[in-house]
């Protein structure tokens, strides 16, 4: 199936219906394996002790929070440049999911920071830039809800999303550019990971599980949005028929 064929919402929904059961099973299996490895196999850190177990949900949710905005930025280009009919659907539905993962990142990071750093929060570059990401998610969600016409809302949200994408490299490199309590990059870095394999492997498995969860929820939410727009069209048709 070509990408252009997915421009038809009904065809997209049919494909989503076929994919979703497999994705749900893959997500559950990946979480079962990842959490088993994280909670029962991975050793404690020599400095942090068992609190390192928070990393297995904190780091993947941070990645997914950023990936969600990156996906929205690509969809924003799809909306503004290629005018793909499903691009704004993808952009709109990624926002609450990305916001949820960013919220998990912030809360678990705060709970990890208290025993590790001695504080729940500091206004340093990494923590503040992730908080800004969360607030931008809320802003985009509010924008979608403010403008009733989906196509007008899509254009405004696309511009806001592309402007907000500037924050992604700031989040990534904030630990290199500024002094921060947050540790520097230790997985995705030049020269390879600095994490020992017995901890890195469960982290990568939970990262795959979180990514599968994101994809599954995003497909489900896109299917809902297509139905919502169908409902809107039918209501407009009914209103037009009632007032010829």
């Amino acid at each position: 199936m070509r990408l252009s064929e997915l421009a038809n919402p009904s065809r997209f929904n049919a494909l989503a219906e076929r994919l979703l059961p497999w994705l749900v099973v893959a997500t559950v299996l990946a979480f079962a394996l990842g959490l088993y490895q994280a909670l029962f196999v991975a050793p404690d850190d020599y400095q942090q002790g068992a609190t390192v177990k928070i990393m297995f949900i904190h780091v993947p949710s941070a990645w997914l929070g950023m990936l969600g905005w990156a996906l929205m930025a690509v969809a924003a280009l799809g909306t503004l440049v290629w005018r793909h009919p499903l691009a704004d659907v993808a952009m709109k539905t990624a926002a609450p999911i990305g916001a949820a993962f960013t919220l998990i990142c912030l809360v678990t990071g705060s709970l990890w920071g208290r025993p590790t750093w001695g504080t729940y929060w500091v206004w340093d570059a990494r923590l503040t830039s992730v908080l800004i990401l969360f607030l931008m998610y809320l802003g985009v969600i509010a924008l979608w809800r403010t403008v009733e016409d989906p196509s007008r809302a899509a254009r405004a949200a696309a511009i806001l999303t592309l402007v907000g994408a500037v924050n992604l490299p700031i989040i990534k490199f904030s630990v290199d550019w500024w002094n921060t309590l947050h540790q520097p990059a230790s997985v995705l870095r030049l020269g390879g990971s600095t994490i020992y394999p017995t901890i890195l492997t469960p982290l990568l498995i939970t990262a795959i599980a979180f990514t599968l969860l994101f994809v599954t929820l995003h497909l489900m939410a896109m299917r809902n949005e297509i139905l919502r727009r169908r409902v809107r069209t039918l209501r407009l048709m009914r209103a037009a028929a009632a007032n010829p």
Partner: protein
Amino acid sequence: MSVPVDLGPHAGFIVAAYAIALAVVAGLVAWIVLDHRAQLRILADLERAGVTRRSAAREEV
């Protein structure tokens, strides 16, 4: 209830982190599933009332 793994002196922080993550994900899943049911119900109501899309007939072929 005993914890099956020794989480050390900061067990409360670890359990809270996992519990909050689970609650947020569960809330997200519930919202999406309930939204799907709601949209299907509204669509069914509209179609029962005789409001159908022009393309619906073509898709059913």
